């Protein structure tokens, strides 16, 4: 969520554990604006925290004027000093999917691949040495996966200009309560996959400046999002069941929205059994 709304957002989006003690929360309020100044970001989003066994990583994202451009990600262990993370590559993401288990909490920790059975992995072993992956890279890859899979925004919040860049829609006044309860009013904020497969009839109803992303309606498996009205039906909270810990909140008819991830950084592969 936006760093400026951090305090209200944490009240609305909490599932019980925010991972942020009061001290860290106060520290964030002081260090995030400094990040904006030092790295010359247009805006800073506090992405959330990934809890390792010993320590937790706190992640912030900085965005430039084009919201669809690759974002810079920074991590910190104490919410005061931030370090830039390397950008995510496909190879990193593929390697990270093979790892399982919790994060350790130490960015220089090296994971060793225990089982290398499939033929695909033989490619990696061409060098002849043990396959290792640093925790930092695993962190980057996990954040990228989570953003791709479950990073969501409400419909009409972002607009695509004719030049291709994505901007915030200044006319967005919030979803109505009826719209907010439907999954089709929320979009994945990544490269769309299903959009091209829509029939021409459906595409005719879409507004190319607003509907340029995939909506949540057709997520597989169905039921992987829970939509709830909390706090006396004043806040709509969406929680992902695929990545447990991702919470998205929106106050209908206002401009407040955002998502935060606070969890162990593991995909819930048991989802089909649990529904």
């Amino acid at each position, binding site marked *: 969520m936006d760093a400026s709304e951090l305090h209200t957002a944490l009240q609305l989006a*909490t*599932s*019980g*554990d925010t991972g942020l003690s*009061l001290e860290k929360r106060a520290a964030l309020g002081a260090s995030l604006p400094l990040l904006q100044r030092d790295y010359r970001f247009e805006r800073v989003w506090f992405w959330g925290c990934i809890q390792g066994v010993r320590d937790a990583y706190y992640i912030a994202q900085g965005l430039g004027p084009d919201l669809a451009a690759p974002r810079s990600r920074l991590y910190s262990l104490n919410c005061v000093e931030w370090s830039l993370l390397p950008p995510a590559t496909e190879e990193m993401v593929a390697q990270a999917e093979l790892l399982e288990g919790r994060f350790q909490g130490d960015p220089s920790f090296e994971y060793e691949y225990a089982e290398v059975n499939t033929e695909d992995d033989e490619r990696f072993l061409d060098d002849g040495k043990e396959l290792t992956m640093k925790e930092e890279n695993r962190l980057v890859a996990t954040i990228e996966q989570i953003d791709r899979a479950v990073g969501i925004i409400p419909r009409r919040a972002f607009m695509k200009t004719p030049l291709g860049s994505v901007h915030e829609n200044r006319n967005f006044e919030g979803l109505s*309560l009826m719209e907010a309860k439907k999954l089709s009013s929320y979009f994945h904020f990544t490269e769309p996959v299903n959009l091209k497969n829509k029939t021409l009839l459906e595409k005719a109803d879409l507004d190319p400046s607003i509907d340029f992303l995939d909506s949540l309606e057709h997520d597989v498996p169905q039921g992987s999002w829970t939509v709830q*009205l909390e706090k006396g*039906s*004043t806040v709509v909270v969406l929680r992902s069941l695929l990545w447990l810990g991702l919470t998205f909140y929106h106050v209908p008819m206002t401009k407040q929205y955002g998502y935060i991830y606070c969890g162990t950084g593991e995909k819930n592969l048991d989802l089909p059994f*649990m529904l």
Partner: protein
Amino acid sequence: EHGPYLPHEPGYGLYQPGYGPYDDQTPDPEHRMLSFQNAKAYLLKSSVTSGLNLYDHLVNVLAKILDEQPTDPVDIFENISKDVKAAQFQKKMDTLRDEHEVLPSFDSAEVRRNLFLKTDGEGDEEREEMGETPLPNVMETAFYFEQGGIGLSRDETYLIFLALKKLVSVQPIQTCRFWGRILGQEMNYIIAEVQYHEGEEEEEETEEEEVMVEGEKRLDEVEDEEKEKGEPLKSTYKPPPVIPKEENGTGANKYIYFVCNEPGKPWVKLPPVTPAQIVCARKIKKFFTGRLDAPVVSFPPFPGNEANYLRAQIARISAGTHVSPLGYYRFTEEEGDEDEEGGGGRDECEENPEFEPLSAFEMVESLSTWVHHVPSILNQGRCVWFNPLQKTEEEEGEEEEEKDEVPDELQQEVGPPLLTPLSEDEGIQNIPAWTASVSTKLTPQYAVAILRSNRWPGAYAFACGTKFGNIYFGWGHKYSLGNHTPALPPPVQPEYPDGPEISEATDPTVEEELAFKAAREQKSLESMEEEEEEEFEDEDDDDD
């Protein structure tokens, strides 16, 4: 500077109005006025499709912009134009008036507001002021958890506090605690852990007994009918003995749990948990929907609905993650408690008046400063082991008949004793069972020690000075490395092996029977002749 050109000076005609170099193209002011009017008439022309005209539309758009004064109007000009056009379609005078929209938030607000009203039971006011109230200080516990970043927002916690107060005023409760919140797909559960006053047990037990008695009666009737019909074979199948649940007030059923979906909604009591439910809950992993009567569809089939599954998970979480600082509880001093049933495990612990707290850093450094104060649940599903081979007095008469089927002796199951330190907790591979942290490193004098469980993600505990607390915020599942593999269905039972004793043979036809009969008679004739010959031979032999 040159003054106005006078007619006799050169360059006179160049700057005169009407005589400039381009003035011959708009010769007349009248013409300019005419072109202006043409342009305006064009703008005022109404469109056939929408009935608007551009002139009025531009007037409205500019008026809106000047009224509202947004920043950078040129960037959102199209949107403003669209909004103004959309506003045209609202009728001002309409005989049909929109019904005032009733949002669901109003109903929820009403429910919450009722929490703040004082209901009947005003007579209890005096007792409350005396200080002996079972209501826990939820806000104080929430404060300590908040230091560690755990908990709901403050106003939500306060509403839960008021909801607990309502619960306490309605039910005869001795101790009460906010246990935590479990998330569900449609709705969430807020759970309160409660102990009744002694002797205030509900009457649901008698209801169950009545049901049992009726069931038995019906069975007897059926058996009588069968005997009358001629006694069909009774099956020799004996189902495995049902392990009885623990008494209310002991073991896994020590506390009673009440749940509600939102603060303000009525509290519902959860039924006590049976060992079969706990054993099954260990094998399945399902999300909660938020409705207590929802069925739990799983394999192995769960004996109960969502209320039972919820109760089983609560029991497991409590047994696995309720911890307290070392020394807070101590064993009750009783004489002769070595020979109790179940071996040397002690079941009761009480608060230790001589408890000396450690600093937060010491609590966090090593896990041996924390202990479990809730008995763990054995594989059987109970806290105290039950020997299913113990025959009751009624069945002893039948023992003599069934001596063939004595099963092997079951091993008594023993779990870790009460008040084991957390350092004995097993981790999962290289992940320790708990993660400890302090709430602040900058002000260590007031730091709170926070424990997060890794085996049950969502279970938290804090300790600060003489205070401690446990709470759960999560989905209600245990952490499992690797994928959850549900139990496979049991193999298909083998059929009775095919053998000659059960294989059917075709009945012989009449000809075959006659032939067989003839052959038999012939054979008997032959054998009789042989016997006669033998007799003759014998007689001959005897004569010789």
